[in-house]
């Protein structure tokens, strides 16, 4: 930037450019808000069909919004009262109550009406083959069996409807619908399950809503039945706990790092100006970066803000480069810019090139990171070039003190020609080899969360009591029409029942048999009642009164022989509509299985593969696969970016020097990966982002030292200050309890240390520079 520009012109240029960018962003800002918190929308398109995408969303919503409350007590009446009080408290707190218990009561009436259409294929075949004799046998068995159902309807003497009802899926084995609850008597206690859903986003307001509701429910239970207990679980409760943990950590980590950095700057520069200028530079960088992302995307993801801010932390290097030269360099204030310009521009060019390569990733997350980081770095450099020279004009009055000299001594010592310049890095790399061999990758999103052990134990206890292990995924039955979809699902369930009787299938076809199956049922009954004399004879043959045969015939003749329709089922139990995927072409049904222990998704996928029209979707597996692709692609782009930077360095410094400058960042990278392996930490997308940061810092250190030279004080000081502030900012994250931040912190802690300690290797040994 030309020195001829006046101070007002510089300020105007800087402010106007920033204001223009922000104004453009304001015009582009989407009404739904500036910050988008739906992290999954940052994942790349899954190349799914509309049905799979809709089903995944539907399935996710059903799971993430659910809150389960389990009330138990020794006394049935008191426990029931406590459950009622808890349910009332939950509703008062804004949660939506579940109506499935009452839905089942309404369904019973519908099934009673269509009872002759509800035989399963085996029972229909048996009646079709055995005719009247088979019915007489069923009636006799039902009357004789000590385990036979009591005839609740008075019109089901053979127990056929009772068997259909008994076979209906139970979401919680051992728990039966009981008014607004599911209830059970087990382990010497009465248990009442309250199912509810948050009415707001589960990972935003819904989390607090759920936590508040549980507190209210607990108080209500304590008041209604002091000896009763309440346990609660659900994704919104975990989200609330995670949010609180993250907030608490971020506050104290931010405070600690800010304090440390301010103390360091104050101690080194003994002036207030660096605080103001560095703070302004950081704010301007984040503002410009956010505005650029909004200009391009319409809004900004919260994860971009977090990670992007981390990555443009590199921008502070530019400020330190300037400050070190201004305060402790050997140039006049008016000459500082000229002294730092080569290092600044080279650092900016290499940084922009490295981040710009992420634009090619094709992943929304990486694209946003790239736009954010490039814009932030340019703004940071722009401020240094335009504002710093006109803000720092007087000769500084701070004397050179030992802390300022120490970095230069370190660099000079490390640059002395010595065999240790070879031995130490080689030894470090040798030590890292076992670590590299122990490295493992992990893209499982569950490993990124910090789930409180007590909540996990409660969740496990509730799931164990309910006899329900959440399934690993869901099936999709895609067809042109509902009937075909139902038939496909029936075929799948039949296959599972034969191959894995321990699995409980759950899907619409369990509540609404296909028309084909219903017609087979009606045809079987038609055959049974076709010959009244034969029917009577069959009953008499077993010693049953003929009036019972006549009564059965009269029931059949008076009954409704129409087919049970989807509309009737939906009207009685709207909850069952969740099995139908909205928005998909044709008819798509969503179904699943549960087991008493973990169900292998591979087994379910095999059943689906063997059934035409069926597919199995493993959402967590798909997200993990996406994260893996993200990680791998980001890694390759970083490598490609580094190669391009290498070309830049070769162009600027020649092949030999460029190779020397590339060596320390790569060494830091190797040491970081080796340490991660030794520590058993996984390599995930967060580690890749940390590696980008480490490479960026290492590259900056090499450029600054190379441009400044080992003999000068200011480049060594700039590099040392950068390393220390980075350690305070990001290395502190190593103590985080959130696994994602913890591993990021470990990687940056090791990487920055290694980058700093190896930085002198980018310079030739003394006497050869």
């Amino acid at each position: 930037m030309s020195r001829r520009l006046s101070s007002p012109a510089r300020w105007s240029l800087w402010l106007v450019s920033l204001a223009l960018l922000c104004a453009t962003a304001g015009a582009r800002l989407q009404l739904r808000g500036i910050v988008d918190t739906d992290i999954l929308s940052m994942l790349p398109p899954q190349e799914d069909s509309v049905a799979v995408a809709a089903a995944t969303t539907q399935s996710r919503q059903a799971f993430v919004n659910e809150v389960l409350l389990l009330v138990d007590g020794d006394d049935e009446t008191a426990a029931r009262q406590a459950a009622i009080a808890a349910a009332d408290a939950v509703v008062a707190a804004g949660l939506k109550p579940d109506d499935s218990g009452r839905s089942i009561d309404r369904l019973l009436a519908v099934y009673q009406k269509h009872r002759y259409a509800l035989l399963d294929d085996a029972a229909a075949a048996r009646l079709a083959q055995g005719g009247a004799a088979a019915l007489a046998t069923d009636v006799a068995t039902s009357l004789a069996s000590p385990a036979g159902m009591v005839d609740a309807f008075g019109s089901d003497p053979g127990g056929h409807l009772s068997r259909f009802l008994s076979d209906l899926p139970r979401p919680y084995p051992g728990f039966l619908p009981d008014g607004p609850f599911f209830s059970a008597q087990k382990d010497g206690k009465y248990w009442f399950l309250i199912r509810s859903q948050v009415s707001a986003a589960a990972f935003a307001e819904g989390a607090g809503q759920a936590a508040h509701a549980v507190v209210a429910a607990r108080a209500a239970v304590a008041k209604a039945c002091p000896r009763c207990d309440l346990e609660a679980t659900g994704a919104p409760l975990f989200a609330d706990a995670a949010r609180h943990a993250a907030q608490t950590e971020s506050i104290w980590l931010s405070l600690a790092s800010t304090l440390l950095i301010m103390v360091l700057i104050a101690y080194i520069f003994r002036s207030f100006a660096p605080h103001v200028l560095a703070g302004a530079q950081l704010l301007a960088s984040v503002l410009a970066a956010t505005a650029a992302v909004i200009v391009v995307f319409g809004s900004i993801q919260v994860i971009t803000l977090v990670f992007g801010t981390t990555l443009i932390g590199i921008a502070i290097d530019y400020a330190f480069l300037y400050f070190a030269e201004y305060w402790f360099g050997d140039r006049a204030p008016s000459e500082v810019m000229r002294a730092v310009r080569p290092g600044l521009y080279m650092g900016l060019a290499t940084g922009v090139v490295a981040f710009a390569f992420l634009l090619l990733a094709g992943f929304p997350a990486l694209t946003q990171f790239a736009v954010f980081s490039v814009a932030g770095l340019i703004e940071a450099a722009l401020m240094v070039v335009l504002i710093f020279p006109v803000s720092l004009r007087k000769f500084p009055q701070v004397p050179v003190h030992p802390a300022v000299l120490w970095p230069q001594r370190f660099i000079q010592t490390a640059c002395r020609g010595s065999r240790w310049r070879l031995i130490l890095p080689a030894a470090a790399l040798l030590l890292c080899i076992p670590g590299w061999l122990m490295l493992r990758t992990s893209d499982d999103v569950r490993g990124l969360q910090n789930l409180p052990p007590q909540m996990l134990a409660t969740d496990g206890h509730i799931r164990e009591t309910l006899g329900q292990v959440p399934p690993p995924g869901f099936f999709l039955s895609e067809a042109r029409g509902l009937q075909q979809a139902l038939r496909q699902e029936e075929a799948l369930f039949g296959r599972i029942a034969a191959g894995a009787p321990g699995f409980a299938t759950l899907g619409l076809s369990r509540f609404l048999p296909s028309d084909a199956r219903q017609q087979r049922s009606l045809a079987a009954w038609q055959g049974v009642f076709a010959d009244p004399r034969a029917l009577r004879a069959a009953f008499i043959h077993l010693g049953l009164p003929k009036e019972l045969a006549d009564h059965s015939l009269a029931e059949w003749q008076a009954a409704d022989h129409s087919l049970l329709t989807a509309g009737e089922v939906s009207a009685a139990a709207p909850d069952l509509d969740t099995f139908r995927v909205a928005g998909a072409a044709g008819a798509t049904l969503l179904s699943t299985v549960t087991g008493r222990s973990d169900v292998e998704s591979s087994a379910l996928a095999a059943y689906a593969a063997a059934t035409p029209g069926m597919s199995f979707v493993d959402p967590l597996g798909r997200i993990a696969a996406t994260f893996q692709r993200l990680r791998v692609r980001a890694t390759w782009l970083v490598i490609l970016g580094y190669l391009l930077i290498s070309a830049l360095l070769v162009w600027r410094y020649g092949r030999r020097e460029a190779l020397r400058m590339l060596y320390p960042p790569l060494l830091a990278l190797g040491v970081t990966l080796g340490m991660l392996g030794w520590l058993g930490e996984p390599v995930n997308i967060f580690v890749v982002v940390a590696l980008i940061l480490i490479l960026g810092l290492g590259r900056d250190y090499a450029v600054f030292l190379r441009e400044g030279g080992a003999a000068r004080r200011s480049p060594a000081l700039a590099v040392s200050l950068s390393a220390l502030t980075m350690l305070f900012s990001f290395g502190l994250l190593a103590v985080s309890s959130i696994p994602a931040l913890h591993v990021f912190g470990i990687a940056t802690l090791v990487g920055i240390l290694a980058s700093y300690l190896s930085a002198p290797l980018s310079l030739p040994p003394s006497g050869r520079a």
Partner: protein
Amino acid sequence: MRLALCSLALTCAGAAAAGPAAPPANFAADFVQTRTLPGFSTPLVSHGDMGYDANHGFHWEINSPYHYVFEMNGKQAHEELPDGSKRDLDPDQTPWLAAVEHIFISALSGNRAELQRYFSLASRPASGGGNELTLTPKPGAIANAISRIEVTESAPGRPQHLEIFETSGGHMDIRFIPAEGHGKP
């Protein structure tokens, strides 16, 4: 369901009347079952025998007017139907049978407290000696099907007569005749 109720009445009536007495290690009896269905004036009468012992579990057999067998031992249950066919029942896959099994096992354990989780108990002296016990289901699934159960016993743990009153209006009457060598006081 009747299995649970019969077993419960047979083995726990004595415990309810006489305090925490141990349930019988085995029991066998012939019985006459009279079933009255709502809307039918003619009752259905059947004859059979039943028994329980710790090793072989529960056995229930109708001999007249047709032949039917039900046996349950632990987690295993199977039936022999009037047409001669046989089938296994899996309590894990049949919620009603699973509930029956739970009550059955609880009842045979002689645990009065467990019994009172399902029923309210009322006992009074029978006119001809022994006791009369009334079991009224507490609110829940059993109460949807059963109004009450009345058991008459000659001595603690020795039932003579069981009546089940169903909510549908149906009624079951079972009279027991202890088999020789079993269950004699």
